[in-house]
């Protein structure tokens, strides 16, 4: 199972949730499969998906799912101690770990070698860290959303990509429709 197949499997779980989605192919795949005002697509800024998600979860009541990647977490490693030390139980971080930089041509990352993101997250102080197989992701994510505890999920999947169209929605529109939805749900 590669990342786009993982996305296909989790769409029913996240379709009604506030989602911050990682730059590049992950955002493009989610946009192609299930475009929603509740999706915030990152069009740039490698690494900050988990930080945006945590900031959003801290600022309001609704649950937030940040869908990040191994390369992105490696770029912004400082995010894990910040998450661990600022616990908000409406935050779920799903790291789709395919051991490669998918959007740039599947160059390998160190998580496909010796580095375990689940162990790093635990060492940083994160309390609920679950590593799962790609096939288990939808169930694990569903359970995390049903439990009221901040959770970090590391989904180990295969690398590989499918052709997906670019996102042409202007960034301010993505942001505005997302904020409208956040505001509506917090009324």
């Amino acid at each position, binding site marked *: 199972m590669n990342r786009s197949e993982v996305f296909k499997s989790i769409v029913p779980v996240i379709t009604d949730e506030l989602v911050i989605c990682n730059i590049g192919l992950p955002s493009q795949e989610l946009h192609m499969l299930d475009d929603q005002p509740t999706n915030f697509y990152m069009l*740039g800024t490698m*690494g900050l998906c988990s930080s*945006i998600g945590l*900031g959003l979860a*801290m600022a309001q009541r609704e649950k937030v799912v940040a869908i990040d990647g191994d390369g992105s977490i490696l770029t912004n490693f400082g*995010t894990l101690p*910040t998450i661990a030390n600022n616990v908000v139980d409406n935050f779920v971080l799903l790291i789709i770990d395919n051991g490669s930089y998918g959007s740039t041509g599947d160059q390998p990352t160190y998580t496909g070698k010796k580095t375990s993101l689940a162990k790093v997250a635990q060492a940083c102080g994160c309390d609920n860290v679950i590593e799962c197989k790609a096939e288990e992701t939808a169930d694990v994510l569903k359970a995390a959303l049903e439990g009221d505890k901040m959770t970090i999920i590391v989904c180990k999947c295969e690398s590989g990509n499918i052709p997906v169209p670019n996102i042409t929605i202007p960034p301010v529109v993505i942001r505005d429709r997302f904020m409208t939805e956040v505001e509506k749900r917090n009324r």
Partner: protein
Amino acid sequence: MSDDISQRVVGDLIEGGIDFVTTVPCKQLAGVIDELDKSDQIHHVPSNKEDEGMGLCAGAFMGGKTPCIIMQNTALGVTINTLATLIQFYQIPLPMLISFRGELGEPVACQVEMAIHTKPLLQQLGIPTFHFHKREDVEELPEILKYTQMCSKPTAILTDATFWRGVR
């Protein structure tokens, strides 16, 4: 470091509606960070790197908060991509209260190296920039905060050593 000026700055932030602040510390900003931690009206989240802090601020903004980032000017080097592709691209208002190291009174030579680039970088990025040098410059802070929200841009408030000491 003078406590009254730090109190004034944090008071103005609160008065200006700022309720979420991320910081990476600087010696010049220690008093401000102390004051932030005393306030129960501001959610203070220390971050490990300034671009991470900007990500937290962007998320908090989308959740209805009015964020501000507090950082040192040397950090401009690690935030340029984030400023351009997140804060500016998505039109997120973000006042940046920046300690302007490397100006008069600076004891550390290396700080001068980034001080030289600070204003040119901000100008290149098209970021409205304000320089607090004299103590009375702080009087502009409330208007700068309003201006930032009005134009939905990042703004830079450079605060140098002379400002924090209150001497000319």
